[in-house]
């Protein structure tokens, strides 16, 4: 085949160009640290990358949900524990009042006052607010679960309104309930046997042994209910903790997967770049030597 200087120049140029573009591609990968900077770099990789990115974002949301739900559950648990110890004190005082046939009017009065005081304190506990939401108010839009008189003003659990649970989504397929409505924890106010009505009755019945012993029975019922609720909250808190562990390991897995898909293999890319650069230099050298000589160099 007849070869001309221009053809040599053209083909050399084409070779140099493709070499240089390979170098530039590798350099771009090295400087950006990612293999996929546009979908066409790797369509399947892009698919994995998009799915993983979405999963990471969703997982981050679950992380926030879990830590928020944990806060809510912890607050509910500690409120219940505090109230339980206070209810026990009420029970002690009630028993004391029951056994106080010989007690003076003053000491009966003192018991009534103390119980009334404890009731106020428990009302305060029951109206605890976390993130603008009363812990025991169900899905109420207001900021109180019980009003000053001890009547339930939350939503759900009484008066024919079903409990609408407050949940936190902890994974794509799982939600965990984080709240406990007042009626569930302290008894249904409609029955008149809820915590605050019973304690109210105790205050009113100090001195009346017969009524007081009925109240004691009711109080025991309320305490049992509260204990069961505390156990329920504890179980949910444990579930939340497990979900948190799973969430953390999922986050780690997803990060690894994204990194595997998108990030460059540094040693490999550096080696490739070095090889490509050597090739490029060799091509430059060869081009410089091939294009130079013609017959002209050898004519006198």
């Amino acid at each position, binding site marked *: 085949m007849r070869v*001309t200087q221009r053809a040599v120049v053209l083909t050399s140029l084409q070779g140099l160009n493709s070499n240089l573009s390979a170098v530039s591609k590798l350099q771009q990968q090295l400087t950006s640290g990612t293999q996929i900077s546009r979908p066409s770099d790797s369509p399947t990789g*892009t698919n994995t990358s998009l799915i993983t*990115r979405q999963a990471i974002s969703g997982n981050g949301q679950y992380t926030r949900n879990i830590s928020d739900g944990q806060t809510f559950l912890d607050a509910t648990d500690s409120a219940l524990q505090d109230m339980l110890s206070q209810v026990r004190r009420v029970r002690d005082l009630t028993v004391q009042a029951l056994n106080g046939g010989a007690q003076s009017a003053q000491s009966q009065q003192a018991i009534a006052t103390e119980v009334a005081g404890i009731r106020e304190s428990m009302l305060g506990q029951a109206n605890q607010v976390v993130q603008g939401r009363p812990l025991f108010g169900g899905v109420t839009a207001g900021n109180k679960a019980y009003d000053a008189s001890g009547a339930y003003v939350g*939503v759900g659990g009484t008066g024919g*309104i079903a409990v609408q649970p407050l949940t*936190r989504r902890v994974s794509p397929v799982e939600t965990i309930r984080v709240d406990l409505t007042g009626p569930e924890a302290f008894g249904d106010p409609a029955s008149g046997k809820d915590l605050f009505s019973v304690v109210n009755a105790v205050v009113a019945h100090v001195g009346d042994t017969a009524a007081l012993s009925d109240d004691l029975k009711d109080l025991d019922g309320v305490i049992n209910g509260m204990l069961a609720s505390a156990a329920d909250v504890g179980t949910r808190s444990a579930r939340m903790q497990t979900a948190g562990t799973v969430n953390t390991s999922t986050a780690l897995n997803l990060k690894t997967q994204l990194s595997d898909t998108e990030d460059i293999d540094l040693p490999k890319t550096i080696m490739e770049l070095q090889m490509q650069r050597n090739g490029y230099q060799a091509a430059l050298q060869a081009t410089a030597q091939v294009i130079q000589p*013609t017959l002209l160099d050898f*004519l006198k």
Partner: protein
Amino acid sequence: MTGTFSGLNTARTALWAQQRAMDVTGQNIANINTVGYSRQRAELQSLGGTAVAATYAVNNNVGEGVSADKVTRIRDAFLESRAQLETATTASLTVADTTLGQIEDAFREPSDTGIQAQLSDMWNAWGDLHQNSTNPGPRSEVLERTQTLVSGIRTTRAALDQQWGSNFDGLQTLVQDVNATATSIADLNDSIRRATAAGLPSNELADKRDTLVLKLSEQIGATATPADGGGVTVSVGGTTLVSGASALTLKMVGSSDPDDLGTNPPRIMTDPGSTLVRPGGTAEGQLTAMTATIPQYRNAIDSMAKNLALTLNTAHEAGYDQDGNQGGALLDDGTGDPTKITAANLTLAVTDGRKLAASTLSPAAAGGSPSGDSTNADSIFQLSLSTTGTDATYRKMIVGLGVQAQTATSRVSSQSVISAQVDASRESVSGVNIDEEMSNLLQYQHAYAAAGQLVSTINDMLDTLINMVR
């Protein structure tokens, strides 16, 4: 018998022919780097005596020297037409590749700022609202995130429209350029015909014309066939563009609005006659971009916007807002009509955070007043997990785009190898080789010297002859 001085005449034609051959070599060397130049060769031809016998004129001459009248252009017609085809294909594929590359740029995926990330942020804002629906913070977060997503979708759509518009402008300019080039080819055809008729050399004109034809091949996929008088007939997709000294004008017709694609798409027609022309080359690439590639992704993002609005609105309307009213449309087309939504007019219809319907519990079911329930926010968050939802559809589109762009890139790179090979083959036929020219130069130089020697020998011979009679 030969004439006494006929030897001198032979030597003279030799001197003249070798000089002319050296001139041609000089022209070749001078144009070694000229694009489109075809090397030339002086056709040396020996001159003989008359071969027709006559009664009283008997000629037994040895010949009367050499002539170098004809200078031919060395060119392979087959390779030239191959080059025209391959150049057109390369140009068309290059435009297709560039178009898809620009579409990829418009979607800027995968990244932390693309539509996918904005979608995720929006869903997460609903997740936050599910956590805390009585607080105004998460409510305004949902509004801001949705607004960002809406802007993201609109920006991408605007980028596609802009790309379409620049293709339209580009094609318009290209058609004007094609018309100018076609006129030049017709003029050159005419000049070449006149030169040929007058027996004048027209090699350089022909080179110039062939370069223009190749330019037309690249621009609009023109092919050329030889015609009478050294001219060429240039045709585009079956329509004759240049015939002899006359050129047809092309015009671009069609609406500059991509929405009119169905009724009045951009197309190229002949100016008198309005016959549809099917171009190749860059024009074909740009027409395909305007009528197929860009509209495909424009429609995809439009229907994505519409589906997003539809699913979000349906879910939103199932809930109740903070004031206990049933949720309204979350997204519309800016005039309150959710059925006319495109990616260009997608608008966030809710501006007040209180109007976000996070609650599933109606006020009636909650005892007469609005509740603080946020289950509907979770239902909306769960839309992000759907395998047929907006996220999945969008992902499918991006992966499809990646495959299409990758195919286009590999096609254009293999096509450029073919094109480069054809160019190299053409160059190997038509190009100038310095070694060859130098050896030719030596050859002609020696022949010239030898012819000079012949003159001096004949001179000596004549000297001897004349001195004989003294």
